[in-house]
């Protein structure tokens, strides 16, 4: 019942959007090359499925590995910045500034530096995902109440014992918020990476199809990319529910 109440509104909204899309695409003034209709998109999905899935698999590997890299590096960076205050002071502004550099312009540079293949895509996905992961985890680590830290000190806990038993578990919900954001933007990073130079992947397929005026295939690719991002977002949410079970029992508290 609850599930239906939660999923029904977005489902209706998507249905309305698809209907409007079909309506616009069916207008006589709109030519098939400009806009593929939902029907044409579904047809393209069915016809080109093996091709699209091959590309999607390549992109998915880039995304998952890049995301993993971002989580690993981000976790080390966040814990390091949390424990060493001078490091935080020095690195935090640099971290923020690094986000101001548009990834689109970095992508070709990464391809130059790392060659075609997996490496530049990983680098771009990781660069995009690193920021939300690191900043959210750092905020989570720092959000532990001062009174709780006082209590730990009074119990004779070492800095590392406090980190392990209090700060890291307390930072998990915040970390997962960052991971959800990272999961959604990770696909964008992989597409940019492929556009800058690649010989496989869903992003490259979309670019190629666009150049060849195969509009329905472009739309089919976009649908798959979107599903990938949404799927990763939901997976991150599921992981959170498994890793942070106490949040639910807190929410259920009368």
């Amino acid at each position, binding site marked *: 019942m609850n599930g239906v109440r939660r999923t029904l509104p977005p489902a209706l909204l998507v249905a309305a959007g698809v209907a409007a899309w079909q309506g616009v695409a069916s207008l006589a003034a709109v030519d098939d090359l400009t806009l593929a209709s939902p029907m044409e998109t579904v047809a393209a999905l069915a016809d080109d499925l093996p091709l699209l899935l091959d590309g999607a698999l390549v992109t998915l590997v880039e995304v998952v590995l890049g995301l993993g890299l971002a989580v690993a590096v981000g976790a080390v960076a966040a814990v390091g910045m949390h424990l060493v205050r001078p490091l935080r002071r020095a690195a935090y502004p640099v971290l923020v500034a690094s986000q101001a550099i548009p990834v689109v312009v970095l992508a070709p540079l990464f391809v130059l530096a790392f060659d075609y293949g997996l490496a530049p895509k990983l680098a771009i996905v990781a660069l995009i995902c690193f920021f939300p992961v690191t900043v959210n985890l750092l905020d989570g680590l720092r959000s532990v*109440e001062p009174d709780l830290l006082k209590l730990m000190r009074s119990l004779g806990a070492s800095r590392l014992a406090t980190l392990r038993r209090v700060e890291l578990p307390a930072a998990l919900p915040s970390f997962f918020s960052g991971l959800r954001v990272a999961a959604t933007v990770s696909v964008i990073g992989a597409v940019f990476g492929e556009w800058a130079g690649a010989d496989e992947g869903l992003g490259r397929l979309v670019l190629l199809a666009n150049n060849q005026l195969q509009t329905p295939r472009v739309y089919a690719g976009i649908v798959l990319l979107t599903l990938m991002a949404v799927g990763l977002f939901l997976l991150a949410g599921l992981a959170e529910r498994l890793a*942070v079970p106490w949040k639910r029992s807190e929410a259920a*508290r009368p």
Partner: protein
Amino acid sequence: MATMQLKAAATKPQPAEEAFGVELRDVTRRFRSSRSGDVVALRGLDLSAADGEVLAVVGPSGCGKSTLLELLAGLGDPDEGSVTARGITSREGRLAACAYMPQRDLLLPWRNALANAALALEVQGVPAAAARRRALPLFQRFGLAEFAGALPAELSGGMRQRVAFLRTLLAGRPVLLLDEPFGALDSITRAAMQEWLAEALAAEPRTVVLVTHDVREALYLGDRVAVLSPRPGRLVAELGVPFERPRPRRKTVTDPAFAALEERALQALETAPQP
């Protein structure tokens, strides 16, 4: 007041020949505040509790009661004067001698009640499973065994406070510092908790400094009650409570001698110099 002689103890641990309690001598504590200059939380405060004594400290809100406990707990140093616990003046020594129970239970929401209490042992290097095994008898003794597996979110306020108290006990320190332990509870739970604590302290005798703003709670639980003035906190009255502990609650609080003490304490609070 045997503790007075230990004033010169400086940083060296003393042999346990005297009754070791806690002592504050002429303690002043200021906090830097950029907006209003320095805030003086405590000024020239003398206070002591003998070994095994329950000293209850009452005072209006903001009289520096929490600061007092943090100094004793070794979470800070006084700007002037000396703070001694078990004959040791150094901050590390106070940290090792005192177990501090903050106002809120501060239970970790991801640990069940038993694991929360066992945390006190775990941070001292006891492996998690062994820590829980050692904590369990305490849960049984204090009637909490059936709640050992419950998460804090599933416990009532009073239960959470009991678990927090067991965590404090498990720290294994001779001195307990309790900061308004029942401040957040409703009055019925509060009365039950006071009785529970009185019995717990009878079963596990410790030197206790209990801070509260409730005069009746102070008189019911304390061997001695110290009344502090509004900030900067200083001692305005000290009352001995001539009842054996643990005390039957209703019989005690309705005793005329108890009422007279309560009257004296309230008067001391009212006539305390205003800042």
